[in-house]
């Protein structure tokens, strides 16, 4: 556990066990790392370089485009002295509508936004590259640099290019947030896009919520506690990181950086390796049988890009560690470090925490119910994700079974309404052999937001 009052943020780690049973075989350990604002120092408002990339294809016609235009006008009026706002609109081609530097919107801004009409197809790559380029033109290190892409549709054939553009922008310090409106957008692609861009994906099921979501994101971008945060996990010798996943404020895969630190066994030198990936995206998928035969592993450092930590800074990450048999009475199992830049300057700061547990000879170790609860919620999320993958592969019986299993977990968690929705979708799938795109989105975005109680996670001991 550690904290840094000056930085106003705190890093804490809790495990599912209070001690490690001494076993002759590999075992799983769950560690929950939480980053939260301590509130000792008021958060700083950083100048914003924001580019809104808005879909105005013909499918946006009506209430959706009306709400988007109102939200864009609202954001233009919220810009303060020193902020930079670029508004890009796209359908099958993209154009820069407004570049607003340093101040609130002029009358002409509203007029230009009002004049936008719905027409054409949806080519996300055209809009995205135009927006990223616009953000890059206005970029300076002193700014929070963000691109917000809003779309309601699919893009065809340019997905890979989009992902590469988002990844390159993130590496250059520009973070991408994706807002999907309605039910027709390709959530798998947009999830990957937001992950590649180091930002979030938000599902907006009703046009009425567009303004609300925009306002929440604007607040989060304007007031930040830390810039360009990276979480580093270095398992100790004999410990492997099976998977790492964001679990709060919503469940999402993490973006891995390509740099790993490799410590040679026997106290040898430490070197930085580039482009090494010891943990495949989505985690280590090898079977427990394969693990059983594995030798003690060389410690490596896994780095995950978290982007800027905004007003909603409280975040948690579940680390799944595979621990080989341990011989010492006290085990140092992993080192967790958060590197970030404070809002006001470019001097990098770090917070560190160790995962240390005593070993015990008996196997009756109490499980922390809060960590268990997080694991159970993540299990429900993963089951429904597997179900959609099975359905897409045409294995409807398997998909149905997985959805029912997810429904059971949700019921056990007390999420009766969501459980019911999942069960109903399983039955529907059983009857028709098809999935409904509305249900997929509702269930996926319902289950990923299941862990809203992070501040309470570390507040008191479990009894």
């Amino acid at each position, binding site marked *: 556990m550690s904290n840094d009052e000056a930085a106003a943020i705190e890093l804490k780690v809790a495990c599912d066990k209070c001690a490690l049973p001494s076993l002759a075989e590999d075992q799983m350990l769950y560690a929950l790392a939480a980053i939260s604002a301590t509130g000792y120092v008021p958060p700083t408002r950083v100048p914003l370089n924001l580019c809104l990339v808005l879909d105005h294809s013909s499918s946006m016609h009506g209430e959706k485009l009306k709400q988007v235009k109102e939200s864009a006008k609202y954001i233009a009026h919220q810009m303060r002295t020193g902020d930079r706002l670029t508004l890009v609109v796209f359908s099958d081609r993209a154009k820069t509508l407004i570049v607003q530097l340093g101040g609130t919107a002029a009358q002409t801004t509203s007029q230009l936004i009002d004049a936008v009409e719905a027409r054409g197809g949806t080519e996300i790559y055209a809009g995205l590259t135009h927006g990223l380029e616009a953000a890059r033109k206005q970029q300076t290190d002193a700014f929070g640099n963000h691109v917000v892409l809003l779309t309601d549709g699919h893009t065809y054939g340019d997905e890979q290019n989009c992902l590469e553009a988002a990844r390159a922008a993130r590496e250059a310090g520009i973070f991408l947030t994706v807002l999907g409106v309605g039910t027709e957008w390709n959530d798998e692609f947009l999830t990957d896009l937001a992950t590649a861009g180091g930002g979030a994906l938000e599902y907006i099921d009703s046009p009425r919520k567009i303004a609300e979501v925009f306002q929440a994101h604007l607040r989060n971008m304007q007031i930040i506690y830390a810039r360009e945060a990276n979480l580093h996990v270095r398992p100790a010798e004999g410990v492997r990181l099976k998977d790492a996943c964001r679990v709060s404020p919503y469940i999402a895969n993490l973006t891995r950086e390509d740099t790993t630190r490799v410590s040679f066994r026997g106290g040898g030198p430490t070197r930085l390796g580039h482009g090494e990936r010891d943990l495949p995206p989505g985690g280590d998928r090898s079977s427990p049988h394969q693990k059983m035969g594995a030798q003690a592993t060389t410690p490596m450092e896994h780095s995950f890009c978290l982007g800027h930590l905004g007003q909603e800074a409280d975040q948690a990450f579940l680390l799944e560690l595979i621990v080989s048999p341990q011989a010492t009475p006290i085990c140092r199992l992993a080192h967790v470090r958060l590197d970030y830049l404070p809002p006001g300057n470019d001097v990098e700061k770090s917070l560190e925490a160790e995962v240390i547990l005593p070993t015990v000879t008996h196997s009756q170790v109490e499980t922390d119910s809060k960590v268990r609860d997080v694991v159970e919620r993540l299990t429900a999320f993963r089951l429904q994700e597997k179900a959609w993958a099975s359905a897409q592969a045409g294995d409807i019986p398997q998909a149905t079974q997985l959805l029912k299993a997810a429904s059971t977990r949700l019921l056990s968690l007390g999420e009766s309404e969501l459980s*019911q929705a999942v069960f109903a979708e399983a039955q529907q799938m059983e009857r028709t052999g098809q999935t409904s795109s509305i249900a997929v989105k509702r269930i996926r975005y319902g289950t990923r937001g299941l862990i809203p109680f992070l501040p309470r996670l570390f507040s008191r001991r479990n009894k």
Partner: protein
Amino acid sequence: MITCRRCHAVHLEGALFCDQCGSPLVSMADEASGEVAPPTGKIKSEFFTSKEAGSEAMVAQNSLLVKEAAETLQLTVSSTGRIFRLPVKGQVLIGRRDSLAGVFPDLDLTPDGAVAMGVSRSHARITIDETGSYVEDLNSLNHTHLNRERLVPHQPRALRAGDELQLGRLAIRVESALGP
């Protein structure tokens, strides 16, 4: 290693849930010690055996009962993985123990967090006879749901393998007990 009781997928010791079917996992060590799900309250062993507490010795002791109950149903508490085998004939009162009030259900869900999950002292009753198994809500405060449908108090409904019961917020799976 832990083998999932439901789908038989193999997991590392310490894993909490099966990633194939979502079931809670119980480690072999816990199982052998019998400490994970000790039978509590006034459990009538002639009615059911606690499979989680079933060390080899215990299974041997109850072999006759296990054999007798081989064609019956079993209840699995989703959150804890505790398994209860129902008798071939008779009644099982489900709820939470309250010795002050003199309530001693046959199936006491107190160790499964019954209070927090809104389970009443006398919550529901399962009746098993030659025509089948039936569940009946005993006018509980937080209701009994069968496959997400709220039961009308005191109106028994047929219970089958594959059903899902919910007592308050506590989920219980109904499965076929095909013997160990």
